[in-house]
């Protein structure tokens, strides 16, 4: 569900980090403040880098998912979503 945000009010997006980003961001989950909702995935990543500058260098190679689906940088993120950050994988 997409909610619009009243002007002037700050809202947050839940972000879940895996792999090296969990280390860099100091934990698996955080609430990233964004100016308005819906925001794009790119907006949320920009907001994350303002909060955690060291995360920046990893984001180019990081995929994002909502639920069990990979999403593009332009995909809108709504208040109910958790944006999941998936840096390069090393299973096997």
């Amino acid at each position, binding site marked *: 569900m997409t909610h619009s945000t009243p002007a002037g009010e700050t809202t947050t997006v839940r972000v879940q980090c895996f792999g090296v980003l969990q280390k860099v961001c100091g934990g698996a989950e955080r609430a990233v403040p964004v100016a308005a909702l819906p925001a794009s995935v790119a907006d949320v990543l920009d907001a994350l880098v303002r909060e955690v500058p060291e995360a920046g260098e990893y984001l180019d190679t990081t995929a994002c998912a909502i639920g069990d689906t990979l999403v593009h940088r332009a995909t809108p993120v709504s208040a109910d979503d958790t944006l999941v950050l998936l840096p390069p994988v*090393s299973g096997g």
Partner: protein
Amino acid sequence: MTSHITTAPIDVGALMATTEDPEAGALVVFAGTVRQHNDGKKVTSINYSAYIPLAEKSIAEIAARARRDHDIQCCEIRHRIGDMAVGDISVLVVVRAEHRGEAFAAGRYAIDIVKHEVPIWKYETYEDGTHEYVKGCPLHHEHPSNRHVAHADAGAGCSPSPTR
């Protein structure tokens, strides 16, 4: 529904038993095991973590692609997560086919793709007390149709050229 991701040790014998097929003449099993040395450093312990909702879906799709693209009877894939010791099986692929050529090809195909497309991360702790997430392979988020072809094992990370 089958769970492909497990925190329990992977039971090879059980997967061999459940995949038995009287029309199969070839069984290929691949297991990835925790190595004592990686990149010249002695590994004391290892932890795998996964983003389970996507990892489950991704592994199910890889097994389905292996069955679709090869003349095989079954392809089962399991990946363990959590803490593991040297020698433990982290990933298992079991393929049965009428003939061995297809069984080998499908097994190789499945493990190559698992290493590239499943959101799982390996975290190694070394004898000298250091630890790190092993360099990996980017998921192709922006251009999923541009996925590179699964390649031979690179010692570390995701080198686009086969090591041999």
